[in-house]
Protein backbone atom coordinates (compact mmCIF):
# COMPACT_ATOMS: atom_id res chain seq x y z
CA UNK A 1 0.00 0.00 0.00
CA UNK A 2 1.19 3.54 -0.74
CA UNK A 3 2.34 4.99 2.55
CA UNK A 4 1.96 8.67 3.33
CA UNK A 5 5.00 10.45 4.73
CA UNK A 6 5.46 9.87 8.43
CA UNK A 7 4.83 12.73 10.76
CA UNK A 8 5.22 13.49 14.41
CA UNK A 9 2.22 15.31 15.89
CA UNK A 10 4.05 18.62 15.58
CA UNK A 11 4.94 18.00 11.94
CA UNK A 12 1.43 16.89 11.08
CA UNK A 13 -0.06 20.02 12.61
CA UNK A 14 2.41 22.19 10.69
CA UNK A 15 1.61 20.39 7.43
CA UNK A 16 -2.11 21.02 7.90
CA UNK A 17 -1.77 24.59 9.12
CA UNK A 18 0.52 25.57 6.27
CA UNK A 19 -1.30 23.34 3.76
CA UNK A 20 1.91 21.64 2.72
CA UNK A 21 0.61 18.71 0.71
CA UNK A 22 -2.66 18.45 2.62
CA UNK A 23 -3.57 15.27 0.69
CA UNK A 24 -0.60 13.46 2.19
CA UNK A 25 -1.51 14.64 5.67
CA UNK A 26 -5.11 13.43 5.26
CA UNK A 27 -3.90 10.06 3.97
CA UNK A 28 -1.63 9.80 7.00
CA UNK A 29 -4.60 10.50 9.32
CA UNK A 30 -6.50 7.68 7.66
CA UNK A 31 -3.57 5.26 7.73
CA UNK A 32 -2.81 5.91 11.37
CA UNK A 33 -6.14 6.55 13.02
CA UNK A 34 -9.07 5.35 10.89
CA UNK A 35 -8.94 1.71 12.02
CA UNK A 36 -8.73 2.28 15.81
CA UNK A 37 -11.41 4.98 15.67
CA UNK A 38 -13.70 2.86 13.52
CA UNK A 39 -13.31 -0.14 15.83
CA UNK A 40 -14.39 2.10 18.67
CA UNK A 41 -17.54 3.25 16.83
CA UNK A 42 -18.42 -0.33 15.86
CA UNK A 43 -17.90 -1.43 19.46
CA UNK A 44 -20.53 1.12 20.48
CA UNK A 45 -23.24 -0.02 18.12
CA UNK A 46 -22.23 1.60 14.83
CA UNK A 47 -22.09 -0.12 11.47
CA UNK A 48 -19.03 0.04 9.22
CA UNK A 49 -20.75 2.82 7.28
CA UNK A 50 -21.36 4.73 10.52
CA UNK A 51 -17.70 4.36 11.45
CA UNK A 52 -16.72 5.53 7.99
CA UNK A 53 -18.93 8.63 8.21
CA UNK A 54 -17.92 9.46 11.77
CA UNK A 55 -14.22 9.28 10.98
CA UNK A 56 -14.63 11.42 7.87
CA UNK A 57 -16.47 14.03 9.93
CA UNK A 58 -13.77 13.77 12.59
CA UNK A 59 -10.99 14.43 10.08
CA UNK A 60 -12.86 17.43 8.63
CA UNK A 61 -13.36 18.87 12.12
CA UNK A 62 -9.75 18.28 13.07
CA UNK A 63 -8.38 20.01 9.95
CA UNK A 64 -10.82 22.87 10.45
CA UNK A 65 -9.71 23.36 14.05
CA UNK A 66 -6.00 23.23 13.15
CA UNK A 67 -6.36 25.61 10.19
CA UNK A 68 -8.20 28.11 12.34
CA UNK A 69 -5.41 27.95 14.94
CA UNK A 70 -7.72 26.59 17.60
CA UNK A 71 -5.91 23.31 18.22
CA UNK A 72 -4.15 23.42 21.57
CA UNK A 73 -1.48 20.81 22.04
CA UNK A 74 -2.87 19.66 25.34
CA UNK A 75 -3.40 16.13 24.15
CA UNK A 76 -1.97 13.97 21.39
CA UNK A 77 -3.67 14.04 18.01
CA UNK A 78 -4.92 10.52 18.59
CA UNK A 79 -6.58 11.51 21.86
CA UNK A 80 -8.14 14.53 20.19
CA UNK A 81 -9.48 12.50 17.26
CA UNK A 82 -10.96 9.83 19.50
CA UNK A 83 -12.61 12.50 21.65
CA UNK A 84 -14.14 14.19 18.61
CA UNK A 85 -15.28 10.87 17.11
CA UNK A 86 -16.79 9.84 20.41
CA UNK A 87 -18.78 13.05 20.65
CA UNK A 88 -19.96 12.89 17.05
CA UNK A 89 -21.13 9.33 17.63
CA UNK A 90 -22.69 10.29 20.96
CA UNK A 91 -24.76 12.96 19.22
CA UNK A 92 -25.69 10.57 16.45
CA UNK A 93 -26.90 8.02 18.99
CA UNK A 94 -28.91 10.76 20.64
CA UNK A 95 -30.56 11.52 17.32
CA UNK A 96 -31.30 7.84 16.81
CA UNK A 97 -32.52 7.54 20.40
CA UNK A 98 -30.28 4.63 21.28
CA UNK A 99 -29.79 5.44 24.92
CA UNK A 100 -28.22 2.09 25.91
CA UNK A 101 -25.12 2.64 23.82
CA UNK A 102 -25.10 6.32 24.68
CA UNK A 103 -24.79 5.55 28.37
CA UNK A 104 -22.05 3.03 27.75
CA UNK A 105 -20.22 5.58 25.65
CA UNK A 106 -20.59 8.15 28.38
CA UNK A 107 -19.18 5.71 30.93
CA UNK A 108 -16.32 4.92 28.58
CA UNK A 109 -15.52 8.61 28.26
CA UNK A 110 -15.14 8.96 32.01
CA UNK A 111 -12.22 6.52 32.01
CA UNK A 112 -10.44 8.01 29.03
CA UNK A 113 -8.06 10.86 28.58
CA UNK A 114 -10.20 13.56 27.01
CA UNK A 115 -9.25 16.47 24.81
CA UNK A 116 -11.05 19.77 25.27
CA UNK A 117 -13.23 19.86 22.19
CA UNK A 118 -16.13 21.93 23.42
CA UNK A 119 -15.46 24.69 20.89
CA UNK A 120 -15.41 22.13 18.11
CA UNK A 121 -18.66 20.41 19.06
CA UNK A 122 -20.56 23.65 19.48
CA UNK A 123 -20.45 24.47 15.79
CA UNK A 124 -20.40 20.97 14.36
CA UNK A 125 -24.07 20.96 13.43
CA UNK A 126 -23.88 24.45 11.97
CA UNK A 127 -20.95 23.46 9.77
CA UNK A 128 -22.80 20.36 8.58
CA UNK A 129 -25.79 22.48 7.62
CA UNK A 130 -23.59 24.98 5.81
CA UNK A 131 -22.03 22.21 3.72
CA UNK A 132 -25.47 20.90 2.91
CA UNK A 133 -26.46 24.33 1.58
CA UNK A 134 -23.47 24.36 -0.77
CA UNK A 135 -24.57 21.00 -2.16
CA UNK A 136 -28.03 22.44 -2.79
CA UNK A 137 -26.53 25.05 -5.12
CA UNK A 138 -26.13 22.70 -8.04
CA UNK A 139 -22.93 21.55 -9.69
CA UNK A 140 -21.95 24.60 -11.85
CA UNK A 141 -22.25 27.05 -8.96
CA UNK A 142 -20.58 24.71 -6.51
CA UNK A 143 -17.70 24.20 -8.90
CA UNK A 144 -17.06 27.86 -9.61
CA UNK A 145 -17.23 28.87 -5.94
CA UNK A 146 -14.97 26.04 -4.84
CA UNK A 147 -12.39 26.81 -7.49
CA UNK A 148 -12.31 30.43 -6.40
CA UNK A 149 -12.72 30.22 -2.63
CA UNK A 150 -11.25 26.79 -1.83
CA UNK A 151 -8.70 26.10 -4.56
CA UNK A 152 -7.81 29.82 -4.65
CA UNK A 153 -7.68 29.89 -8.44
CA UNK A 154 -7.74 33.23 -10.22
CA UNK A 155 -10.55 34.17 -12.63
CA UNK A 156 -8.18 33.50 -15.51
CA UNK A 157 -7.37 30.02 -14.24
CA UNK A 158 -11.07 29.28 -13.76
CA UNK A 159 -11.71 30.18 -17.41
CA UNK A 160 -9.18 27.46 -18.29
CA UNK A 161 -10.99 24.93 -16.08
CA UNK A 162 -14.62 25.62 -16.93
CA UNK A 163 -16.51 26.16 -20.19
CA UNK A 164 -16.93 29.92 -19.81
CA UNK A 165 -15.94 32.41 -22.49
CA UNK A 166 -13.96 34.91 -20.50
CA UNK A 167 -13.17 36.25 -17.04
CA UNK A 168 -16.11 38.64 -16.99
CA UNK A 169 -18.57 35.80 -17.57
CA UNK A 170 -16.96 33.88 -14.70
CA UNK A 171 -17.10 36.98 -12.48
CA UNK A 172 -20.83 37.47 -13.19
CA UNK A 173 -21.55 33.82 -12.61
CA UNK A 174 -19.62 33.82 -9.34
CA UNK A 175 -21.58 36.87 -8.19
CA UNK A 176 -24.90 35.13 -8.86
CA UNK A 177 -23.77 31.91 -7.22
CA UNK A 178 -22.61 33.70 -4.09
CA UNK A 179 -25.91 35.56 -3.98
CA UNK A 180 -27.79 32.25 -4.24
CA UNK A 181 -25.72 30.76 -1.46
CA UNK A 182 -26.25 33.69 0.90
CA UNK A 183 -29.97 33.43 0.03
CA UNK A 184 -29.97 29.79 1.11
CA UNK A 185 -28.11 30.66 4.30
CA UNK A 186 -30.62 33.41 5.12
CA UNK A 187 -33.40 30.89 4.61
CA UNK A 188 -31.90 28.48 7.13
CA UNK A 189 -33.51 29.34 10.47
CA UNK A 190 -30.75 27.96 12.72
CA UNK A 191 -27.99 29.85 10.96
CA UNK A 192 -30.00 33.04 10.43
CA UNK A 193 -30.72 33.14 14.17
CA UNK A 194 -27.02 32.89 14.96
CA UNK A 195 -26.23 35.75 12.56
CA UNK A 196 -28.94 37.91 14.13
CA UNK A 197 -27.41 37.31 17.55
CA UNK A 198 -23.95 38.26 16.30
CA UNK A 199 -25.08 41.48 14.63
CA UNK A 200 -27.54 42.56 17.34
Amino acid sequence: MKVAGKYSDVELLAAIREEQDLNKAILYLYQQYAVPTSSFIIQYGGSEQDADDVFQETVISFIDVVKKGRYRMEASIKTFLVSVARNIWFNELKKRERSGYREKLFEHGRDQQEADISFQISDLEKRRQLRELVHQLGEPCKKILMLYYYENLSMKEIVDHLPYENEQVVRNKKYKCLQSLTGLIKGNPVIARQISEITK
Partner: protein
Amino acid sequence: MEQYQALIDHLDKSLQGEGSPEMEQMLVNDPEIAREWNYLLLAVDAIQEAGLEEQVATIKNDWKAQQAAAVKPTGGIVRRISRNMAKIAAILVLVAGGAAFYKYATISSGSLYDKYYSSYELNTSRGAAEEGAIEKAYHAKDWKAVLAGVNTAKRDNKMDFLAGMADLELKKYNDAIEHFEQVIAVNAQSGSDYFQDEAQYYLAISWLAKDKVNEALPILEKIRANKDHLFHDKVAKMSFFDLRLVQYKESK
Protein backbone atom coordinates in the same frame (compact mmCIF):
# COMPACT_ATOMS: atom_id res chain seq x y z
CA MET B 1 -27.04 45.55 -6.25
CA GLU B 2 -24.03 47.87 -6.58
CA GLN B 3 -23.49 47.80 -2.87
CA TYR B 4 -23.62 44.01 -2.86
CA GLN B 5 -21.07 43.87 -5.68
CA ALA B 6 -18.86 46.28 -3.72
CA LEU B 7 -19.13 44.00 -0.68
CA ILE B 8 -18.12 40.98 -2.74
CA ASP B 9 -15.17 42.91 -4.20
CA HIS B 10 -14.16 43.87 -0.68
CA LEU B 11 -14.51 40.24 0.42
CA ASP B 12 -12.31 38.96 -2.43
CA LYS B 13 -9.70 41.62 -1.81
CA SER B 14 -9.81 41.05 1.96
CA LEU B 15 -9.09 37.37 1.41
CA GLN B 16 -5.94 38.51 -0.40
CA GLY B 17 -5.16 41.01 2.37
CA GLU B 18 -6.15 44.08 0.34
CA GLY B 19 -9.56 45.17 1.70
CA SER B 20 -10.50 48.84 1.50
CA PRO B 21 -10.45 51.00 4.68
CA GLU B 22 -13.60 52.88 3.48
CA MET B 23 -15.57 49.68 3.32
CA GLU B 24 -14.21 48.64 6.72
CA GLN B 25 -15.56 51.88 8.09
CA MET B 26 -18.98 51.27 6.50
CA LEU B 27 -19.08 47.84 8.10
CA VAL B 28 -18.58 49.44 11.49
CA ASN B 29 -21.16 52.16 10.95
CA ASP B 30 -23.95 50.42 9.05
CA PRO B 31 -25.57 47.39 10.76
CA GLU B 32 -27.39 46.35 7.60
CA ILE B 33 -24.16 46.18 5.59
CA ALA B 34 -22.49 44.41 8.52
CA ARG B 35 -25.27 41.84 8.44
CA GLU B 36 -24.82 41.19 4.70
CA TRP B 37 -21.09 41.00 5.28
CA ASN B 38 -21.56 38.29 7.91
CA TYR B 39 -23.67 36.29 5.50
CA LEU B 40 -20.93 36.56 2.88
CA LEU B 41 -18.28 35.41 5.35
CA LEU B 42 -20.50 32.51 6.29
CA ALA B 43 -20.94 31.65 2.61
CA VAL B 44 -17.15 31.50 2.17
CA ASP B 45 -16.91 29.33 5.29
CA ALA B 46 -19.55 27.04 3.83
CA ILE B 47 -17.67 26.75 0.52
CA GLN B 48 -14.40 26.01 2.27
CA GLU B 49 -16.10 23.41 4.45
CA ALA B 50 -17.64 21.74 1.42
CA GLY B 51 -14.30 21.87 -0.40
CA LEU B 52 -12.54 20.22 2.52
CA GLU B 53 -15.27 17.59 2.74
CA GLU B 54 -14.75 16.69 -0.92
CA GLN B 55 -10.99 16.58 -0.52
CA VAL B 56 -11.21 14.30 2.53
CA ALA B 57 -13.77 12.05 0.81
CA THR B 58 -11.49 11.69 -2.22
CA ILE B 59 -8.49 10.71 -0.08
CA LYS B 60 -10.69 8.34 1.93
CA ASN B 61 -11.76 6.58 -1.26
CA ASP B 62 -8.12 6.30 -2.40
CA TRP B 63 -7.17 4.88 0.97
CA LYS B 64 -10.00 2.35 0.85
CA ALA B 65 -9.05 1.32 -2.68
CA GLN B 66 -5.44 0.85 -1.55
CA GLN B 67 -6.59 -1.21 1.41
CA ALA B 68 -8.77 -3.40 -0.79
CA ALA B 69 -5.88 -3.92 -3.22
CA ALA B 70 -3.54 -4.82 -0.36
CA VAL B 71 -5.75 -7.65 0.88
CA LYS B 72 -6.75 -8.97 -2.56
CA PRO B 73 -5.11 -12.31 -3.31
CA THR B 74 -2.81 -11.92 -6.26
CA GLY B 75 -2.56 -15.59 -7.19
CA GLY B 76 0.74 -16.86 -8.50
CA ILE B 77 2.72 -19.71 -9.77
CA VAL B 78 3.04 -22.71 -7.56
CA ARG B 79 6.62 -23.75 -7.79
CA ARG B 80 7.76 -27.32 -7.60
CA ILE B 81 10.55 -27.97 -5.19
CA SER B 82 12.26 -31.21 -4.44
CA ARG B 83 11.48 -33.14 -1.28
CA ASN B 84 15.02 -32.58 0.15
CA MET B 85 14.88 -28.90 -0.51
CA ALA B 86 11.54 -28.77 1.22
CA LYS B 87 13.00 -30.53 4.30
CA ILE B 88 15.95 -28.14 4.50
CA ALA B 89 13.63 -25.21 4.08
CA ALA B 90 11.38 -26.57 6.82
CA ILE B 91 14.31 -26.92 9.24
CA LEU B 92 15.54 -23.43 8.45
CA VAL B 93 12.07 -22.07 8.93
CA LEU B 94 11.81 -23.83 12.30
CA VAL B 95 15.16 -22.51 13.51
CA ALA B 96 14.54 -19.00 12.24
CA GLY B 97 10.97 -19.16 13.47
CA GLY B 98 12.11 -20.17 16.97
CA ALA B 99 14.59 -17.31 17.13
CA ALA B 100 12.07 -14.90 15.72
CA PHE B 101 9.42 -16.14 18.14
CA TYR B 102 11.76 -15.61 21.10
CA LYS B 103 12.64 -12.13 19.90
CA TYR B 104 9.00 -11.32 19.18
CA ALA B 105 7.90 -12.55 22.60
CA THR B 106 10.49 -10.56 24.53
CA ILE B 107 10.72 -7.31 22.60
CA SER B 108 8.67 -4.21 23.48
CA SER B 109 8.94 -0.43 23.40
CA GLY B 110 9.86 -0.58 27.06
CA SER B 111 12.71 -3.03 26.41
CA LEU B 112 13.98 -0.74 23.64
CA TYR B 113 13.76 2.21 26.00
CA ASP B 114 15.87 0.31 28.57
CA LYS B 115 18.35 -0.53 25.83
CA TYR B 116 18.67 2.95 24.36
CA TYR B 117 18.13 5.32 27.24
CA SER B 118 21.15 7.13 28.55
CA SER B 119 21.14 10.22 30.72
CA TYR B 120 21.80 13.58 29.17
CA GLU B 121 25.17 15.01 30.15
CA LEU B 122 24.77 18.69 30.83
CA ASN B 123 28.07 20.42 30.26
CA THR B 124 27.16 24.10 30.22
CA SER B 125 27.39 26.41 33.16
CA ARG B 126 26.62 29.76 31.68
CA GLY B 127 23.67 31.98 32.57
CA ALA B 128 22.10 33.64 35.53
CA ALA B 129 22.33 32.59 39.14
CA GLU B 130 19.05 30.68 39.09
CA GLU B 131 20.21 28.80 36.00
CA GLY B 132 23.41 27.95 37.86
CA ALA B 133 21.37 26.50 40.69
CA ILE B 134 19.30 24.42 38.30
CA GLU B 135 22.40 23.16 36.55
CA LYS B 136 23.91 22.30 39.92
CA ALA B 137 20.80 20.34 40.86
CA TYR B 138 20.90 18.62 37.48
CA HIS B 139 24.52 17.57 37.95
CA ALA B 140 23.64 16.31 41.43
CA LYS B 141 20.76 14.33 39.86
CA ASP B 142 18.38 16.06 42.24
CA TRP B 143 15.47 15.90 39.80
CA LYS B 144 12.89 17.36 42.14
CA ALA B 145 15.11 20.37 42.74
CA VAL B 146 15.52 20.76 38.98
CA LEU B 147 11.74 20.83 38.55
CA ALA B 148 11.27 23.23 41.46
CA GLY B 149 13.96 25.51 40.05
CA VAL B 150 12.46 25.49 36.58
CA ASN B 151 9.07 26.41 37.99
CA THR B 152 10.44 29.67 39.33
CA ALA B 153 12.96 30.37 36.55
CA LYS B 154 12.34 32.39 33.43
CA ARG B 155 10.91 29.94 30.92
CA ASP B 156 13.00 29.15 27.85
CA ASN B 157 13.91 26.10 25.81
CA LYS B 158 16.76 25.11 28.07
CA MET B 159 14.53 25.22 31.14
CA ASP B 160 11.86 23.18 29.39
CA PHE B 161 14.42 20.68 28.20
CA LEU B 162 15.95 20.23 31.66
CA ALA B 163 12.48 19.89 33.17
CA GLY B 164 11.72 17.26 30.53
CA MET B 165 14.89 15.35 31.42
CA ALA B 166 14.08 15.56 35.14
CA ASP B 167 10.57 14.22 34.41
CA LEU B 168 12.04 11.45 32.31
CA GLU B 169 14.38 10.44 35.13
CA LEU B 170 11.40 10.45 37.52
CA LYS B 171 9.45 8.32 35.01
CA LYS B 172 6.84 11.05 34.56
CA TYR B 173 6.72 10.39 30.86
CA ASN B 174 3.66 12.48 29.98
CA ASP B 175 5.19 15.54 31.61
CA ALA B 176 8.50 14.90 29.88
CA ILE B 177 6.77 14.67 26.51
CA GLU B 178 4.94 17.90 27.18
CA HIS B 179 8.23 19.72 27.89
CA PHE B 180 10.03 18.33 24.85
CA GLU B 181 7.09 19.13 22.59
CA GLN B 182 7.04 22.62 24.03
CA VAL B 183 10.69 23.10 22.98
CA ILE B 184 9.91 21.88 19.47
CA ALA B 185 6.77 24.01 19.23
CA VAL B 186 8.61 27.13 20.38
CA ASN B 187 11.35 26.52 17.82
CA ALA B 188 8.76 25.89 15.12
CA GLN B 189 7.20 29.23 15.90
CA SER B 190 10.37 31.25 16.31
CA GLY B 191 12.46 29.54 13.63
CA SER B 192 15.27 28.88 16.13
CA ASP B 193 16.84 25.53 17.02
CA TYR B 194 17.79 26.04 20.66
CA PHE B 195 17.83 22.58 22.28
CA GLN B 196 15.93 21.29 19.24
CA ASP B 197 18.08 18.20 18.61
CA GLU B 198 18.13 17.27 22.27
CA ALA B 199 14.36 17.68 22.60
CA GLN B 200 13.68 15.61 19.47
CA TYR B 201 15.84 12.72 20.59
CA TYR B 202 14.54 12.57 24.14
CA LEU B 203 10.96 13.01 22.91
CA ALA B 204 11.39 9.82 20.87
CA ILE B 205 12.92 8.08 23.90
CA SER B 206 9.99 9.23 26.07
CA TRP B 207 7.52 7.79 23.58
CA LEU B 208 9.39 4.47 23.75
CA ALA B 209 9.13 4.60 27.52
CA LYS B 210 5.38 5.00 27.13
CA ASP B 211 5.22 1.99 24.77
CA LYS B 212 4.31 4.26 21.86
CA VAL B 213 6.72 3.16 19.20
CA ASN B 214 4.43 4.61 16.50
CA GLU B 215 5.16 8.06 17.86
CA ALA B 216 8.87 7.42 18.39
CA LEU B 217 9.71 5.84 15.06
CA PRO B 218 9.04 8.82 12.75
CA ILE B 219 11.20 11.07 14.95
CA LEU B 220 14.03 8.55 15.04
CA GLU B 221 13.85 8.10 11.27
CA LYS B 222 14.08 11.85 10.83
CA ILE B 223 17.17 11.98 13.06
CA ARG B 224 18.75 9.07 11.21
CA ALA B 225 18.21 10.85 7.90
CA ASN B 226 19.88 14.04 9.13
CA LYS B 227 23.65 13.61 9.34
CA ASP B 228 24.02 17.00 11.03
CA HIS B 229 21.73 16.04 13.87
CA LEU B 230 23.44 15.98 17.24
CA PHE B 231 22.09 12.49 17.93
CA HIS B 232 22.50 11.10 14.43
CA ASP B 233 25.33 8.69 15.32
CA LYS B 234 23.49 7.41 18.34
CA VAL B 235 20.28 6.79 16.38
CA ALA B 236 22.18 5.28 13.44
CA LYS B 237 23.36 2.53 15.80
CA MET B 238 19.81 1.63 16.83
CA SER B 239 18.18 -1.45 15.33
CA PHE B 240 15.34 -0.21 13.16
CA PHE B 241 14.38 -3.82 12.57
CA ASP B 242 13.67 -4.12 16.29
CA LEU B 243 11.75 -0.85 16.27
CA ARG B 244 9.60 -2.01 13.36
CA LEU B 245 9.07 -5.38 14.98
CA VAL B 246 7.75 -3.62 18.08
CA GLN B 247 5.62 -1.41 15.88
CA TYR B 248 4.10 -4.49 14.28
CA LYS B 249 3.64 -6.20 17.63
CA GLU B 250 2.02 -3.18 19.24
CA SER B 251 -0.31 -2.64 16.30
CA LYS B 252 -1.81 -6.10 16.88
